[in-house]
């Protein structure tokens, strides 16, 4: 009996991915490349050279009008009033209990114009949440522009040199988490943001989502990066790269059952920003009660074995105390690493715990995060 199958969504580059012989997977309802020639090679290209990702499945919600700042401030925990035009920051939309609707990157496009980039798997939920939460607020118009852009991420120490070949905009003048608009591959007014999800330097560009333009720019970026060994990179490498950098992934480190302090993202929650954002009261109460009872920690396996998503974390005595949210071999670090929730009394550095791997207890220890930090560029 065939189950009712829903058609997977495709980005404008789907035929290109298939032509590259990518292995495709269902990612949050999207038919996406998990790897092309190999995850490890793709991961290493981003750490040592440059890699190109299709991240068009990410969503984009725009807020326009004199009330747009008030709407963003009500919705998101970071203080968007601090943003200047052309600047972006990490933030999150919360439920009233301080758990996550989604994590987002807020971009200030102009005085009365903000763009938030949201996750693929949470698009519909996010758009509904935004409309429900701020739809009644005055002088703000909310638009879901998720399908209007092909979003490409060019990431790695050679990303600047690669993209610079395709634009007159001086990319070295764009600081981390800032963006501008420029001509890229002959297209005018392309948003060029120095952002990413790999822990590496790099850019995300937003181009029109028609197949022909998307394929042409994809090809031009690959050609520009050829001398640096550029590789098209899939979601597999995107995941291991962000894990080495200990960046949260929705549905893993953050979700509707995990609050901001547990996730270690309190530094992005601006309780004193003067706007009562959704979730603020709950976060204040958690703080007043002495902080969270469990915390997200980095683990490194010290015995032979790989802790993976969902595996139980135990005290060395065998008592179950928590769970891995993301775990994998780390291709650049060449260690087996994981992020896991454990009670705060087990969260101290060098604490030895055990991961239950198919019935066996395998020792791991708590280590500082991020596991990987990119080297500072020599001046």
């Amino acid at each position: 009996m065939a189950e009712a199958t829903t058609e997977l969504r495709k980005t404008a580059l789907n035929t290109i991915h298939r032509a590259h012989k990518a292995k495709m997977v269902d990612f949050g309802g999207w038919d996406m490349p998990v790897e092309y020639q190999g995850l490890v090679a793709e991961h290493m290209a981003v750490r040592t050279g440059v890699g190109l990702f299709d991240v068009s499945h990410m969503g984009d919600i725009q807020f326009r009008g004199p009330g747009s700042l008030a709407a963003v401030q009500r919705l998101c925990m970071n203080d968007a009033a601090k943003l200047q035009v052309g600047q972006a920051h990490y933030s999150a939309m919360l439920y009233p209990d301080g758990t996550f609707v989604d994590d987002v990157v807020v971009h200030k496009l102009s005085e009365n114009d903000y763009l938030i980039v949201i996750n693929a798997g949470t698009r519909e939920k996010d758009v509904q949440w935004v409309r429900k939460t701020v739809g009644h607020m005055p002088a703000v118009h909310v638009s879901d522009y998720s399908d209007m852009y092909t979003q490409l991420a060019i990431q790695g120490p050679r990303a600047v040199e690669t993209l610079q070949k395709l634009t007159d905009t001086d990319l070295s003048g764009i600081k981390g988490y800032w963006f501008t608009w420029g001509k890229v591959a002959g297209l005018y007014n392309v948003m060029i943001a120095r952002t990413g999800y790999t822990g590496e330097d790099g850019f995300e560009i937003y181009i029109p989502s028609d197949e022909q333009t998307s394929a042409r720019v994809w090809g031009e970026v690959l050609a520009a990066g050829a001398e640096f060994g550029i590789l098209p990179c899939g979601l597999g490498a995107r995941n291991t790269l962000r894990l080495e950098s200990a960046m949260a992934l929705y549905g893993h480190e953050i979700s509707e059952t995990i609050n901001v302090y547990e996730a270690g993202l309190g530094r992005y929650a601006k309780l004193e920003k003067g706007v009562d954002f959704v979730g603020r009261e709950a976060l204040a109460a958690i703080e007043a009660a002495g902080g969270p009872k469990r915390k997200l920690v980095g683990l490194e396996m010290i015995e032979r074995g790989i802790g993976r998503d969902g595996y139980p974390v135990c005290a060395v005595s065998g008592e179950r105390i928590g769970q891995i949210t993301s775990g994998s071999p780390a291709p650049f670090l060449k260690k087996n690493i994981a992020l896991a929730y454990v009670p705060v009394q087990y969260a101290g550095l060098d604490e030895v715990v055990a991961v239950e791997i198919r019935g066996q207890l395998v020792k791991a220890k708590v280590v500082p995060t991020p596991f990987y930090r990119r080297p500072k560029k020599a001046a």
Partner: protein
Amino acid sequence: MSYPASYRYTKEHEWISADGTAGTVGITDYAQSSLGDIVFVELPKVGDAVEAGKIFGSVESVKAVSDLYSPVSGTVTAVNEELKDKPEKINEDANATWMLKLDLKDAGELDALLSAEDYEKFVSEETGH
């Protein structure tokens, strides 16, 4: 993808080559390709018994874990120790990279396994191309 005609195959993507009651076991080219970069192999010890259709170990790539199923019953006579440090050998040449050598309990069990041709057909049906 290549599947030597002299080997026999399981639907769980292991191969076995046998000479009398001496068997050699590995995973198929298709298996290594769908797993991707292999980083970890867990195998039984010499002297352990394995049983046809039962799990004898596991193989892990960066992105996934996969159980290994024994094509036949028997006793482990050798384990490829090289795979502890160089599991990527399996990606490089799955047909030539063995995992276990076995003393088969009953060489007749080989008849229940797939020929190269049948295995190739099975894989193309399973993957839809």
